[in-house]
């Protein structure tokens, strides 16, 4: 499948980069009926306008079809845009175009969640917060710079990769999804382990009087395993989430628990 051996390419860097910039507004008309459909058409239009310049009927047909339900990760929409633009340019069958689009949005949404929301955001924001919490103004700046280098790197890499590789990218993107998720999980979980030990504030002031001796409970706990309470508490909430409680309910429980525990002097 040598899809990029297409000699008379219509689209230039100009259209491709215009699509990449427009993809920043993928969710501008986000709604629960068709999710990112409006933004998807908006992002694809630079290519459609050029390809169907003198064929208004074709343009209308393409626009209507691309207004169908669409949802993926906003940072990884550009590889799909690139592939679909290449297919439109080659005059592929509308059914094939729709099929490829639907086949890609799920896996890329999954990779995006794993590497952006679950790994890169917690790491870069965690680094920023670890500086800011000491009153260091570099915290927010470091976060914004690191995060956006990765953000824009992905967006502009994606549009070129998708368009140049065309349908050949399909297999690679789909099989690569699992590997990338696994790698992201390794980094992400290591960092979450560190965050649990660093930023959950739980120390008990309990003192047990046994005859003459007094035992400070927190000291004993620290000798067994430092940060034991934050770890146990996080696993408890994890268990509640697994049981199907909504985050909002859990937040309510934490607030009540904090007040009650304080009242009885446990924390």
């Amino acid at each position: 499948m040598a899809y990029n051996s297409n000699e008379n390419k219509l689209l230039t860097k100009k259209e491709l980069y215009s699509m990449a910039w427009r993809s920043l507004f993928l969710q501008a008309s986000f709604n629960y009926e068709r999710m990112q459909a409006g933004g998807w058409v908006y992002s694809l239009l630079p290519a459609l306008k050029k390809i169907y310049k003198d064929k208004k009927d074709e343009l209308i047909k393409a626009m209507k079809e691309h207004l169908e339900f669409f949802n993926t990760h906003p940072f990884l929409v550009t590889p799909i845009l690139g592939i679909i633009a290449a297919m439109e340019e080659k005059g592929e069958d509308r059914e094939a175009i729709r099929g490829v689009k639907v086949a890609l949005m799920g896996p890329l949404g999954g990779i995006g969640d794993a590497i952006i929301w679950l790994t890169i955001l917690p790491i870069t924001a965690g680094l920023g917060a670890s500086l800011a919490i000491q009153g260091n103004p570099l915290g927010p700046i470091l976060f914004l710079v690191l995060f956006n280098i990765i953000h824009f790197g992905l967006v502009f890499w994606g549009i070129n990769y998708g368009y140049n590789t065309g349908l050949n990218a399909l297999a690679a993107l789909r099989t690569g999804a699992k590997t990338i998720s696994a790698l992201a999980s390794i980094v992400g979980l290591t960092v979450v382990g560190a965050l649990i030990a660093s930023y959950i504030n739980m120390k008990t002031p309990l003192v047990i009087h046994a005859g003459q001796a007094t035992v400070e409970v927190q000291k004993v706990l620290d000798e067994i395993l430092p940060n034991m309470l934050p770890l146990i508490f996080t696993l408890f909430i994890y268990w509640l989430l697994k049981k199907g409680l909504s985050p909002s309910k859990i937040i309510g429980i934490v607030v009540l628990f904090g007040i009650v525990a304080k009242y009885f002097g446990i924390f």
Partner: protein
Amino acid sequence: MMLVKALLIALYAGLAGVDLFDGQLHFHRPVVTGAIVGLILGDFEKGLVVGAALELVFMGMVPLAGAQPPNVVIGGVLGTAFAILANLDPKVAVGLAVPFAVAVQGAITLILTVYAWFIHMADKYAEEGNVKAVEFINLAGMIPLFVFYAVVAFLPLYFGADAAKNIINSVPQVIMDGLRVAGGMMPAVGFAMLLKIMLKKEYIHFLILGFVLVSYFKLPLIAVAIIGIILAAYSYYNGNLGSKDTEKEGVSDGI
């Protein structure tokens, strides 16, 4: 004077609310919000610290597969503002901001449901071949969002700052102390949400490693992140990832 400050914060909240969905430069995250709101209200340092505390709480609360988490923009803006205006401990501010953020998200969900109307207008313009209108419909979706966030940030700050201060001052000390305790624990919710999605049996040891590196070895976060990346690279080059992606080879044992 408060009018100007409240307007500036409302302007920022509107932009940040749009950034949550569009542009996504992520200046809407609490670690940035804290600094900006702190700057506007004249206590930059406190803003930084409160923003960082809120960042840790909201870290795991991200929009996964369409599920809407508590609203990070309003939580960050009002949490920081009230912490500075009512002179609250950052942990108390966290305890107050998060329930507020949950309530606001309900309203956002409603807006995003009503938005389906936009897309039906786009259908009509597409049918007519009106490209400019289709493009405009998409971009116009940002206007109601901007207005909503700006108003939701402005009203409690302009009309409610003094009232909030009085209410907060009249809250019994035991409740305030309880909120401080709850605020200190609150990051566990976000971390647990991250675990719910990432944690699999074959990866538990990485979580323990990260925990131990900080608990016993006191390593800073960046060092732990680098170790995590090294481990991921090691797993990749030694081909022992829990779930094999080379399905065509059909080898299922990962070790």
